[in-house]
């Protein structure tokens, strides 16, 4: 049976924990709003870009001269998995879910006899995947110092990926991130970026009618690397919003749990205080009777 003093300390400590989780929840809510805004702002660019790219890809893609970034190396032996996670924890199952998806994917590939290489963005994912698939890790991009993800960060990551592709280090690249649906739902997603895949449904029907300056091939060769950066950027933004959303709901849960715990401890505290009082009374009364 803990003493009254112990219980009191316990309640105090849970109370301050609740204060912290409450504050974190509110900070996450504010950051989520900003992250969502950033994602919103980038949407027009991404949408136009993809529409033009799919039009171009549809008209050039069939020919033999299509760039490698679009047609692939003609091989799918070596896979690069880009695992995008957060730099900070305390965001529920966010990082675990993305890592789980990537790990399952990697295991399937290994079982199929393919070679797997993993590039991590965000240290939480690296820590989680290192345990089982550590020997497949080939690199890590650190964004700890980055307060607000900008396009330049995405360009840096894309440059890294493209450099490895040009050096023939892999044939297929897939990025893993969490798609933001709402505060309680974030869907871990795998998206293939090399060779580029475009959704034909949003292709510009009239793309064949465009004049191209310089040639279609030249434009495609110029735009494909930018396409990788655009996709990475979009994924980073989605991930940012998902991370804050996940943290918000995790902290909301933690706050509620702390509240319940305080209630329980308070009841226990009151009971034991009552017991102490009753005890003292009994001692006084029996002392008086003995006289």
């Amino acid at each position, binding site marked *: 049976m803990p003493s009254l003093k112990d219980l009191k300390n316990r309640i105090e400590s849970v109370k301050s924990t609740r204060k912290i989780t409450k504050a974190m929840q509110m900070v996450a809510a504010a950051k989520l709003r900003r992250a969502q805004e*950033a994602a919103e*702002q*980038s949407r*027009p*660019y*991404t949408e*136009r*870009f993809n529409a*033009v790219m799919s039009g*171009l890809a549809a008209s050039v893609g069939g020919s033999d001269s299509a760039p490698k970034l679009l047609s692939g190396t003609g091989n799918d032996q070596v896979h690069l998995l880009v695992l995008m996670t957060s730099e900070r924890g305390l965001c529920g199952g966010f990082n675990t879910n993305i890592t789980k998806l990537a790990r399952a994917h990697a295991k399937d590939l290994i079982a199929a006899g393919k070679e797997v290489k993993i590039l991590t963005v965000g240290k939480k994912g690296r820590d989680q995947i290192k345990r089982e698939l550590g020997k497949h890790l080939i690199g890590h991009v650190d964004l700890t110092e980055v307060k607000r993800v*900008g*396009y330049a960060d*995405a*360009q840096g990551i894309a440059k890294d990926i493209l450099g490895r592709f040009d050096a023939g280090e892999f044939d297929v690249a897939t990025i893993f991130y969490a798609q933001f649906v709402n505060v309680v739902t974030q869907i871990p997603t795998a998206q293939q970026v090399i060779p580029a895949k475009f959704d034909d449904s949003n292709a*510009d029907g*009239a793309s064949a*009618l*465009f*004049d*191209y*300056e*310089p040639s279609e091939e*030249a*434009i495609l060769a*110029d*735009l494909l690397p*930018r396409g990788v*950066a*655009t996709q990475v*950027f979009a994924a980073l933004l989605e991930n940012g919003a998902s991370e804050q959303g996940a943290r918000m709901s995790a902290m909301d849960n933690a706050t509620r749990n702390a509240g319940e715990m305080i209630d329980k401890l308070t009841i226990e505290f009151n009971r034991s205080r009552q017991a102490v009082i009753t005890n003292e009374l009994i001692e006084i009364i029996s002392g008086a009777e003995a006289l």
Partner: protein
Amino acid sequence: MADTMQFDLVSPERRLASLQVTAVQIPGADGDMTAMADHAPTITTLRPGVLSVEGPDGTAEYVVTGGFAEISARGVSVLAERAMAKADVTQGDIDALVADAEAALAHARDTAGAETGPVDDAAKLLADMVAVGGALGLANR
């Protein structure tokens, strides 16, 4: 009153402009071109340069680097990797861009070996950046 068309300038981070304009002067990879309403549908890549937009309310100028412009029946969309209103561009921005281009050139020289293509491209990029600085009346160190 000349015909107007829809003009959008977007960068990955935000939408800089969306308005009705009469003419847009685009720094295309193969040379500057001006698009007015009912221009033939065209897609062109951009070189670093100054994009100038003539609208009913006067002229606006933007500095753009990298990306492409799409001229269609709906209007002109310019998708630039980096875009800034000309008035907001500082000496520091130009210096950073020129420094980037110089680094890219040095890198191309190191890695390209016998191939001259990448080196020429990087040299052209650097020249374009310097030209942008010149066009803005900012010194190039």
